[in-house]
């Protein structure tokens, strides 16, 4: 994959992911894991986990690390630029008409359909990731997954803290307990 191809791919991903947050996950997975086989599911989860341990938008962090992994430092910087360019261009363009645009009936209608579509594809991505994570140390991984799920769904604890706790849990468990004894 050339620098230019990589830039275009991230630019495209950043242009079609509405709603921010984790919506980039299924799209990145499709482009780099399914279509081009440049990353494995496990590597992709690692990149997202790592991206989450830094401040800032998940989409930008994931684009940066994907670029870093595939194309080195130049790729990392290209990833950031490709990720921030679409919102930069679109919001500047809409600046003078934003009120009319955001409350427009047809824009809202299109968005309702898109939200349904994005929710559907998120389910597929989560399923693939969960299956991947549960291949080894099923009980340990399953418990962490369930706890993080409940914390994410039911509380408003800052994600940064949750990430820190998860990293610590993994580090402590695998430092002090022999690997073969972790279920």
């Amino acid at each position, binding site marked *: 994959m050339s620098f230019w191809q990589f830039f275009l791919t991230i630019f495209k991903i950043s242009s079609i992911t509405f709603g921010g947050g984790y919506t980039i996950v299924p799209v990145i997975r499709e482009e780099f894991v399914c279509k081009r086989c440049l990353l494995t599911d496990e590597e992709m989860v690692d990149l997202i986990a790592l991206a989450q341990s830094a401040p800032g*938008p998940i989409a930008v962090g994931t684009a940066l690390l994907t670029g870093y992994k595939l194309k080195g430092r130049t790729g990392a910087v290209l990833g950031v630029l490709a990720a921030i360019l679409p919102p930069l261009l679109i919001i500047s363009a809409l600046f003078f008409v934003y009120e009319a645009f955001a409350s427009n009936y047809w824009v809202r209608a*299109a*968005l309702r*359909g898109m939200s349904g*579509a994005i929710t559907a594809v998120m389910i597929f991505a989560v399923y693939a990731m969960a299956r991947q994570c549960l291949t080894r140390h099923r009980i340990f991984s399953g418990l962490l*997954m369930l706890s993080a799920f409940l914390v*994410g769904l039911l509380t408003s604890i*800052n994600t940064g803290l949750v990430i820190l706790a998860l990293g610590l849990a*993994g*580090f402590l468990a695998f430092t002090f307990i022999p690997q073969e004894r972790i279920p």
Partner: protein
Amino acid sequence: MIFWQLFIAFLEVGAFAFGGGYAALPLIEQVAVNRYHWLTLTEMTDIIALSQVTPGPIALNAATFVGTRVAGFPGAIVASLAAVLPQTLFLLFLGWFMFYGGRTTAIDRALKGLRPGITGLIAAATVSMFISTFIIATGPLTIDWIAAAAFLIVIVLRIRKVSLTKLIFLGAGLGLAGGLIEHLVRP
């Protein structure tokens, strides 16, 4: 100097917004509304609404919006770059460790906890999305039939391996079609 102020303000937002998305909102409010008075609270709410109908993270949308208001397009560029600068430096450093530093065992062990955890967090976000997408919050419990129809159609097509880009555009098309139907049948 206005560019410098913009830069510092969004550097702060970028440096402290852990967890992305809504973690950035209180920071943006603190900086752009309360400290520099670049926005009113109503405009801040408008930006959140605008972010939901345009692609891109909310922090970047806010940076672009505020930058454009205060100093035109160059202001938007300065604010956006400032918002991602702390993250970029931090991840270049971390990425270097990860990909070139011979992957220390410490990171490897932490990742064994992070992998399932992140999956759990994304699953939680998906459930929240599911709820907010299908249930119309105003008035009595109502299902958003447009979103539900798009959801079901996309599930079927995704099983048949239709590409994601097509599915997202299809979602938009279905939304417009549904909107047209609602528009026509409305009394």
